[in-house]
């Protein structure tokens, strides 16, 4: 049995929706970076009215280090999203992450 956890470190997140109002806060997962990471998105395909963007994803190395695909980091998009009021989050893990490496490092 494999346990997969994503832990995202967020610079800031949305405000909670009002009590008893239909929840409308929206985080879009941006499946970017290179083919060895997530690799669906290469352009700005994030819905304009979303509150936050979840960059998916950074990987976990065997020594517990967090690996970000720097060559394919969407720096310009992140700047654009932040300039339009979106919060940008980083998802750590991915579909085959082994958090044991993190626990032991």
């Amino acid at each position, binding site marked *: 049995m494999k*346990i997969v956890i994503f832990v995202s470190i967020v*610079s800031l*997140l949305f405000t909670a929706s009002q009590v008893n109002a239909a929840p409308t806060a929206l985080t879009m997962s941006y499946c970017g970076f290179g083919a060895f990471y997530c690799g669906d998105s290469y352009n700005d395909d994030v*819905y304009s009215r*979303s*509150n936050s963007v979840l960059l998916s994803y950074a990987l976990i190395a065997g020594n517990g280090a967090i690996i970000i695909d720097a060559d394919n980091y969407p720096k310009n998009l992140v700047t654009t999203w932040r300039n339009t009021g979106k919060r940008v989050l980083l998802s750590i893990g991915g579909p085959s992450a082994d958090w044991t490496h993190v626990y032991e490092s």
Partner: protein
Amino acid sequence: MANLILDLRRQLNAIGRKYLVVTSDCIAVYQGVAVPDADKGGQPFNYLVPVITLADSAIDYYQVKAYSNWYDGYDHTSLLYLQDVYLNWRNLQGYCPDCKPIAGFRGVAQNKLMMGVVGSADARKPIEYAGPGIIKSFKTWLYSKGYDMVGFNVWNSHWDYLNGNQISSTIVN
């Protein structure tokens, strides 16, 4: 894991205000099975219950997958499925007929809960795509019950875009 989260919180606090979000896959909260020991684990369902109990103060938000885990046999594209996911994570009475809320567990607070949905039938599997109509009905159900949560996550922007932003636009409207 609880110790890792608590330690991570301490580390993050040292570099400025950061938010920490936990996303679950396969380790869903479910009232129909026992809660494992925090130091032993050993089963996927309810693995997070002791973690939430021990480390909730360090966690800002929970992003719950509402499309892949089994919940009382409901079709993953049904309104009942989304409702059951919500009720179990909040630890309100879920739809398992012979189950009770987990004793000693307060559930995830509504101001920390987000539910993840898929952006199109092609994003993962068609049987996991609830579609805009069900999501709209789910929001209406929350409102009618006086329930709340923070909002939704969509997996992912690429497939939502190709699907004409049907899911994202339903969520924000």
